[in-house]
């Protein structure tokens, strides 16, 4: 039993702790604690209890509460203890109170008086205890009661008190800035306190203040730089050293402050360059705290006005982090890289392999951070690889928070950088399939809109191609029983709208599928609603086209079932459908025009088509319509604008009951919001149908869809052409530069070809990574997929191919632009590169690749490892069976097959990547699934 320093506890407490420690189950523990609570309740209310005992009981209460049980019955006793004269008891009281209560608790008011008294105490320890309590317990209302005293304590002779007073003032400022604002000057003053500890404490509130508004503190830049310099030059007393680093926490805080002050301010930044450079140079890379300072320097460098020299040393420091064996340092390195990349994107390229290592690391934190980095560096050239990786990761994790985050990032990146509609749809399919319930429903509506509108161009052929590919892909997966609801809604809508459009699938086939969907998801009203409307559309389009149509029996029974549904929405849809069945083709064509989902719906808000009817009615002696305002005006002059019936308490008569037209609109609106079909910009069926029912709903649903249109238009900006079209224009010139660069490398290749063959068998690891790196960063290239055939013949052939690369490359470009745009900025990093990896060519990608990759391998064969042909030949064999064992750990080829169909080389790369890891060749990679199992 630890018996130092008068913190002794009794045997009872020891027994309690022991018995809890020995429990085997949670319920046993709960029982013990409940017993304890009973005992304490009894004893604590005993008036004759000695103080010492009381103190122990309170500690036991704190302990109980920490274990998750309610100890509120003892709060009042803790409060009482703070009033005690004995320092020991008082401090225990304060401790318990700060742990038990929050600043808005009712009991606080009983403590404020004690705090006030204690702040005036002669004993500085009492003052400290009171200041401690201030930090936690004083809220906006009680700040004025103590603030004067706290400010006075800023001048206390003991530095411990000054320090705590600064912190107390800081916590007041956090809780209610308004009541402390006039005292902010005190923080500035305390910056020049002769005790470095107080100065260090002052940095905390200053950091917060500067984070809110930089401008008033610009004049302090020189002082901060000066302090930092002194600290770094070891001018502080030795006691501030930590692991032989001078006052590291003060340095870090100062660097953070400088980062804020220097951001976008050239003049201030220039003052900092020297000191930051010095610190970066001097810091001890062997110790943890030294690295912390280096990291902070990098953050600062990336935030202030860039200085080329500092950026360079920052990049070096990052390189050291990434090369380190420590996961912590790698993590910091990735974080730092993510910051620096905003300023100088090219540095990522040097570290591509390290980044990929981190991406494959079993450690989830590191992986997540790396994905964050990738997310930051995504551009149209590498979006496919990155998003595929993200989707794989998303599939592999269970944590819904990160799943949602990853899914929304995938969607965001896909929306921003999608190289082709087809790819976009495939990606969306995957995201929906695996995280459908987690993505924002708006994403689904955007997807439908994209399919309906294409990219907003007039290229009808491309649009219809997009639609057919969407239909096709949906038909493939629609039978999957586990599809999320949102995605099913999209599928139903697309099938209904475009399922029969290209004539490839018969109406009865589509209808059958839709009926299956409705049946399989009978618990989901929204899906059923979508399905039945889709069925209606399919039927209408068929009939309008003059084809002979009959309802499938299952469709018939579905209709019957739905017309008796509990959901009024489903009922309505079913009855509408049945009504349509009796109409002739002509009428149907008007109700359900083909592919009119994007047409604007014109709404005649004045209801002019009723004019004739009104006219006749008037002629027949009907009362003319009096507008609502006029009506209420005549009734109650004081309440012209007030329409609510509940706000006329003085009225003896309820005139409001006679206001007929008004309520119709609001009551109809809510359903328009809740039922997803009508959220889609395609409310054609409903609204064109409804006018025949009544005029009220027409206005209602019309304005509903109007709102939506507005909202979606905002979204469309994202889809705008710029990113998309710019890519195609730049691609050709980029490829020129690449081919010439490769040609340059060709010469050396022949010379070293032989030596490389010797080296190859020894190497196995990084080939796939390099390839992945190349596609991510557009940097140094990987090796060819079909290396096993890398004989001399292949070499010569390959180099020939590359020499003519220019012609060859341009050919595919022209072929593919119709469907997709080739990634543009691949080569803006200026490397002779395997950027080709993400480029797809309809011609023969392998031929070019072989040449390209083989050649450039030379360049890095010395520094990095290259792969042996034999090993690769081995890998390519067992792919099928291994893949099954390891679905999540690696990019799954079946998942990739669809989205990567235009980049066969890339797919292969990822396949092999997976294989290498399954075979355990790569030491750094393990199956992350194992870990996720462990973690539950």
């Amino acid at each position: 039993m630890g018996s130092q320093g008068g913190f002794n506890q009794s045997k009872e407490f020891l027994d309690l702790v022991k018995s809890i420690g020995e429990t085997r189950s949670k319920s046993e523990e709960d029982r013990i604690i409940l017993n304890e609570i009973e005992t304490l309740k009894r004893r604590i209310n005993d008036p004759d209890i000695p103080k010492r005992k009381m103190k122990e009981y309170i500690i036991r209460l704190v302990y109980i509460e920490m274990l998750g049980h309610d100890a509120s019955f003892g709060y009042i006793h803790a409060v009482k203890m703070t009033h005690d004269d004995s320092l020991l008891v008082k401090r225990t009281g304060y401790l318990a109170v700060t742990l038990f209560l929050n600043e808005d608790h009712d009991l606080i008011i009983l403590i404020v008086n004690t705090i006030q008294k204690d702040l005036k105490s002669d004993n500085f320890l009492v003052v400290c205890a009171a200041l401690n309590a201030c930090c936690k317990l004083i809220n906006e209302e009680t700040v004025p009661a103590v603030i004067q005293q706290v400010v006075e304590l800023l001048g206390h002779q003991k530095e411990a008190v000054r320090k705590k007073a600064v912190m107390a003032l800081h916590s007041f400022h956090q809780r209610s800035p308004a009541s402390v604002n006039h005292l902010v000057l005190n923080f500035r003053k305390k910056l020049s306190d002769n005790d470095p500890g107080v100065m260090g404490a002052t940095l905390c509130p200053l950091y917060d203040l500067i984070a809110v508004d930089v401008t008033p503190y610009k004049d302090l830049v020189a002082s901060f730089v000066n302090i930092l310099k002194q600290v770094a030059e070891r001018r502080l007393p030795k006691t501030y050293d930590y692991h032989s680093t001078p006052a590291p926490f003060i340095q870090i805080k100062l660097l953070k402050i400088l980062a804020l002050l220097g951001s976008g301010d050239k003049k201030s930044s220039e003052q900092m360059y020297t000191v930051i450079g010095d610190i970066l140079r001097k810091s001890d890379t062997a110790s943890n705290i030294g690295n912390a300072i280096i990291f902070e320097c990098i953050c600062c460098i990336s935030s202030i006005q860039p200085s080329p020299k500092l950026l360079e040393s920052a990049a070096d420091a990052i390189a050291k982090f990434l090369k380190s064996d420590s996961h912590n340092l790698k993590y910091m390195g990735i974080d730092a890289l993510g910051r620096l990349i905003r300023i100088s994107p090219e540095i990522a390229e040097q570290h591509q392999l390290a980044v990929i290592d981190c991406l494959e690391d079993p450690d989830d934190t590191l992986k997540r951070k790396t994905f964050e980095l990738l997310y930051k560096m995504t551009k149209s050239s590498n979006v496919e690889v990155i998003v595929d990786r993200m989707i794989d990761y998303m599939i592999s994790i269970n944590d819904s928070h990160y799943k949602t985050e990853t899914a929304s990032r995938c969607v965001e990146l896909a929306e921003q950088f999608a190289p082709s509609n087809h790819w976009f749809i495939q990606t969306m399919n995957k995201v929906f399939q695996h995280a459908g319930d987690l993505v924002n429903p708006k994403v689904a509506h955007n997807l439908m809109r994209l399919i309906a509108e294409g990219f907003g161009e007039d290229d009808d052929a491309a649009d219809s191609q997009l639609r057919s590919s969407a239909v096709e892909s949906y038909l493939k997966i629609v039978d999957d029983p586990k599809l999320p609801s949102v995605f099913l809604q999209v599928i139903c809508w697309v099938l209904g709208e475009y399922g029969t459009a290209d004539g490839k699938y018969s109406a009865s086939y589509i209808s059958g599928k839709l009926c299956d969907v409705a049946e399989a998801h009978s618990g989901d009203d929204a899906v059923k609603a979508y399905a039945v409307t889709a069925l209606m559309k399919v039927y209408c389009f068929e009939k309008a086209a003059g084809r002979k149509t009959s309802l499938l029996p299952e469709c018939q029974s579905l209709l019957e079932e739905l017309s008796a549904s509990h959901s009024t929405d489903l009922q309505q849809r079913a009855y509408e459908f049945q009504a349509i069945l009796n109409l002739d083709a002509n009428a149907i064509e008007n109700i359900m025009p083909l592919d009119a989902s994007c047409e604007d719906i014109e709404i005649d808000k004045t209801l002019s088509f009723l004019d004739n009817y009104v006219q006749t009615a008037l002629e027949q002696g009907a009362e003319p319509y009096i507008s609502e305002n006029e009506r209420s005006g005549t009734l109650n002059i004081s309440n012209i604008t007030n329409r609510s019936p509940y706000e006329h308490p003085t009225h003896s008569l309820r005139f409001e009951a006679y206001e007929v037209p008004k309520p119709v609109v609001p009551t109809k609106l809510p359903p328009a919001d809740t039922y997803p079909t009508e959220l889609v910009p395609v409310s054609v069926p409903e609204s064109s149908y409804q006018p025949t029912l009544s005029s009220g709903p027409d206005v209602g649903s019309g304005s509903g869809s109007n709102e939506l249109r507005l909202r979606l238009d905002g979204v469309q900006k994202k889809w705008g052409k710029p990113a998309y079209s710019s890519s195609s224009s730049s691609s050709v010139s980029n490829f020129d530069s690449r081919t010439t660069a490769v040609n340059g490398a060709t010469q050396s290749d022949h010379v070293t070809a032989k030596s490389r063959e010797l080296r190859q068998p020894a190497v196995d690891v990084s080939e796939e990574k390099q390839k992945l790196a190349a596609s991510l960063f557009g940097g140094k290239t990987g090796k060819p997929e079909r290396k096993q055939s890398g004989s001399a013949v292949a070499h010569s052939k390959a180099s020939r191919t590359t020499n003519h690369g220019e012609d060859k490359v341009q050919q595919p470009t022209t072929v593919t632009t119709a469907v997709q745009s080739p990634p543009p900025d691949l080569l803006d990093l200026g490397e002779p590169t395997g950027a080709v990896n993400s480029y797809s060519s309809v011609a023969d990608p392998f031929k070019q690749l072989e040449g390209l990759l083989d050649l450039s391998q030379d360049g890095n064969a010395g520094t990095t490892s290259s792969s042996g042909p034999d090993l690769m030949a081995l890998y390519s064999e067992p792919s099928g069976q291994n893949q099954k064992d390891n679905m999540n750990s690696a990019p799954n080829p079946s998942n990739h097959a669809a989205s990567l169909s235009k980049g066969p080389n890339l797919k292969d790369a990822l396949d092999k990547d997976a294989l290498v890891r399954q075979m355990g060749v790569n030491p750094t990679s393990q199956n992350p699934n194992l870990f996720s199992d462990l973690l539950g």
Partner: protein
Amino acid sequence: MIRAVLVINNQGKPRLAKFYNYTPVEQQQQIIRTIYSVLCLQSNFIDGASIFGQDTHLVYKLFATLYFVFVFDSSENELAMFDLIQVYVETLEKGFNNVCELDIVLNYTKMHTILNEMILGGQVVETNSQNIIQAVEEISKLEKVTAATKLISKSASILWG
């Protein structure tokens, strides 16, 4: 700022829980459980977004049977926090001479006293373990003195207490 300091043993039992923003007891338990469930990864940093909300990080370190966990937001440096754990444990070591889990359970108040000297209102105020120990010892000395004088006037205090 630092949001919380937690000490959890390797069976998931909390040994010390200090939250710098008020957190209801049930939520504290929930947080401790969640944190414990993620504490077996390789690196010492964990993204706290799913546990504590946006912009939070966790750093932890395992000493014998105890996980020391610090939760903080982006105004702190992860590596520095990592070292702050080191400072805390070094201080405990000095304060208890070869600290073990039992010391920590039984000297709950001392744990808090040490922590309060280091971190105040979620901000780091002192990182020199020698200074911290000095302050703590001063406190305990004074407490002993007052406790002794109290013993004399004990009978009196019972009368009005």
